[in-house]
């Protein structure tokens, strides 16, 4: 039985390691400014924790198989020095890892809005994302979803018709962003909690009813990407997707102009 356990644990370890090395499914290519730093964080984490995983399983396997050779177990109640050494080592390792993570978090979570950032308001509603741009005046119009929201009449967010600032607002079903600009996302939700997840940009933030959550992102690679909802929001949760289109600065300006002409 000891040999069987040894082989099983080695097999599990090898198979798991292979799975992660070959990784037929993996992170999509990172296309935001923060992706490289996060991918580096993942790499460090997977190496550190992968090494501990292999070490732990193999140690377990060999301790199990080693017991076969003994006539009588050792009477051994512990060893404070080993215990303390192990505790300090693992604590040092984990806290070093923790501090490196905290640094990354502080870089991601910039509290003050970057000057000149492109503002986009993101609203989640069962089971659709809406993206609003302030238009030429740079000011978002007032909304009142309870009073004015009529998705079938082209006013899903409930823009107040009395507010002139809202007249040039652009409401889009796709998130269109200029590359290499800081983007400030302002997240809202109309009914329940949703979560804006853009894997290629390593970005996720809940959109919470009653809250206005500001987040920053900087796409660096033009292309088409997907948004998935990452917070259980009801029966249509699995199909609450949206497209992200990252375009050049000129194309972005042209898109805004074309949309403004349509409004």
């Amino acid at each position, binding site marked *: *039985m000891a040999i069987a*356990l040894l082989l*099983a644990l080695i097999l*599990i370890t090898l*198979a*798991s390691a292979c*799975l992660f090395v070959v*990784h*037929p*499914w993996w992170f*999509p290519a990172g296309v935001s400014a923060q992706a490289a730093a996060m991918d580096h*964080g*993942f790499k460090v*984490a997977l190496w550190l*924790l992968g090494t501990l995983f292999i070490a*732990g*399983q193999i*140690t*377990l396997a060999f301790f199990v198989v080693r*017991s076969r050779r*003994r006539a*009588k*177990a*050792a*009477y*051994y*109640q*512990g*060893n404070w020095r*080993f215990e303390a050494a*192990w505790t300090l080592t693992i604590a040092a390792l984990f806290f070093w*890892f*923790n501090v490196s*993570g*905290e640094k990354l978090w502080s870089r*991601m979570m910039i509290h003050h809005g970057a000057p000149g950032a492109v503002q986009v308001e993101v609203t989640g*509603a*069962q089971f659709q994302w809406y993206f609003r741009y302030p238009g030429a005046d740079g000011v978002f119009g007032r909304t009142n979803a*309870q009073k004015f929201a009529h998705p079938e009449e082209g006013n899903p967010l409930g823009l107040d018709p009395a507010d002139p600032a809202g007249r040039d607002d652009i409401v889009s079903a796709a998130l269109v962003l200029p590359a290499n600009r800081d983007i400030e996302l302002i997240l809202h939700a*109309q*009914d*329940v*909690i949703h979560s804006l*997840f853009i894997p290629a940009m*390593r*970005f996720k933030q*809940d959109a*919470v*009813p*009653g809250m206005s*959550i500001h987040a920053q992102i900087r796409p660096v690679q033009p292309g088409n990407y*997907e948004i998935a909802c*990452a*917070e*259980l929001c*009801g*029966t249509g*949760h*699995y199909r609450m*997707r949206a497209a992200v289109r990252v375009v050049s600065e000129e194309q972005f300006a042209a898109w805004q102009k074309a949309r403004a002409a349509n409004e």
Partner: protein
Amino acid sequence: MRQISPTSPEPRASRFLRRYLFSADHKVIGVQYFFLSLAAALAGAVLSLLMRIHLVWPHMAIPLLGEIKPENYLGFLTVHGTLMVFFVLSTVPQNGFGTYFLPLQLGASEMAFPGLNMVGFWTVLVSFLVLMTALFVPGGASIAGWTQYAPLSAIAAAGPGQGTGTDLWLISIGLFCVGTVLSAINFITTTVRRRAPGMDWMRMPLPCWAWFVTAILSLLAFSILLAALVMLMLDRHAGTNFFVPAGLVVSGRAVEHSGGSPLLWQHLFWFFGHPEVYIAILPAMGITSHLLSVFSRKPVFGYKAMVTATLAIGALGFMVWGHHMFVSGMNPYAGFAFSTLTTAIAVPSAIKVFNWLGTIYGGRIRFSTPMLFSIGFVSLFITGGLTGPLLAQPALDAYLHDTYFVVAHFHLIMAMAGLFAVFAATHFWFPKMFGRMMNERLGALHFWITLAGAYAIFMPMHLLGIAGHPRRYSELTGVQYVAAMAPLQKFITVAVIVTVAGQLVFLVNLFWSMLKGPRAGANPWDCSTLEWTLASPAPVAGFAGRLPVVNRGPYEYSVPGAEVDFLPQDAPATHGS
């Protein structure tokens, strides 16, 4: 009404009812909890099977059920999570084995409050029935998951299952909180007041330590959850505004609430919910520490460190809840504190792993089924535990949060490791509970199927999460990059089918052994703790007024100079140590 004089014999039927059904005997109640959890585990497993099938073959017609719809999937998801977390992992290791064996390991014949013990069980049973009823009401069970995030859980119009289904969920879990708090009071009092003479704190077997600390966590955590459930119920039916903010439009209709905070629910829920994780796993850790020592024929490596680590996990368990909320909209500064505290709790967990390995090292292992499952527990605990420090990093968690990576993490460390401890404990204590032995061959077969299954199911889920697959998706067709992961999801579903089918081996073994297994002696595993000084099955009267006197610690195995390789805790002091 008929008068029964004290001398007249009780009718047979009523004697039977009082002995096996409405009994205040902790041993009967322990067995009742065991079977309740078994029923819950079977129901939970069947639901997971249905979910896995719908996920990869959404249009398959299931016999009797027909085609599963997305709302059915989410209803099953809610009930699966609730059953497994509350009625299996929080119930059988603690209230099942703990109710039976806490008094006996401490050298007591009964819990401190036998009547309360019975009330607790019946409350939990009613709670279980209410939860299951939700599957059959119009609209089905709640679709909001076991975490019941508001406002989805607060507004009936937010989806099917959010009306009656959610009310039933709230009533069920409210009852569960009451039952568990009653039981926790009993555990704490019994441990403090009912220890046999000589059973010092530092002579308690490690499962008793785990049950004691878990009871303290249960008392505090379930009280908070109960308060939160009452608040949510009031929001739903009494027009209060705890969790629902102003200005919402649900299903095209304005919601008449204002001033509530969805984050308040998350704080309250996870203030319960994270200690809950330790409520589920601490007894499993205690049982594993115990069994590794018994079957390695060695003292537990670092007993004091194990007790200290248990206490540290219990205390820190209340300070880490915010790691579930890094991307919830909580102030990002709070993320720093919760991240560091979560890393801190990994340290006592690592101490435990080190000491388990130290206990096995240099042992003369007996590879009985309880030991196989205990070794499996250590392996799974290492695997599932190591993704913990990664998820404790807010930046990395932001990407992995609510993906299959997290599903893999908590199923390995809590669900699979927890179940392995339950299987180990079942094989180990079965002779004391039922007077017979379970079959070792079937036990080993079940172990191999389940070990292979656990890894085959949950290891690949890490990759799904890394590739960005969100959890709680009822179908793969809605998002293109998710649809591309169907082959791996199909593999996992096949692994689930095989693994769930493999559990039949356990059921056959359990029931066959109960009726036909070979008779067990008083102490078939050569254990030193007090429950094994009693006959098998444990007599109704327990120690029957002849309280044991404890002379030594619980793990005196292979003591140099002793004639046998274990010294019972109550053996006379001249016998060696």
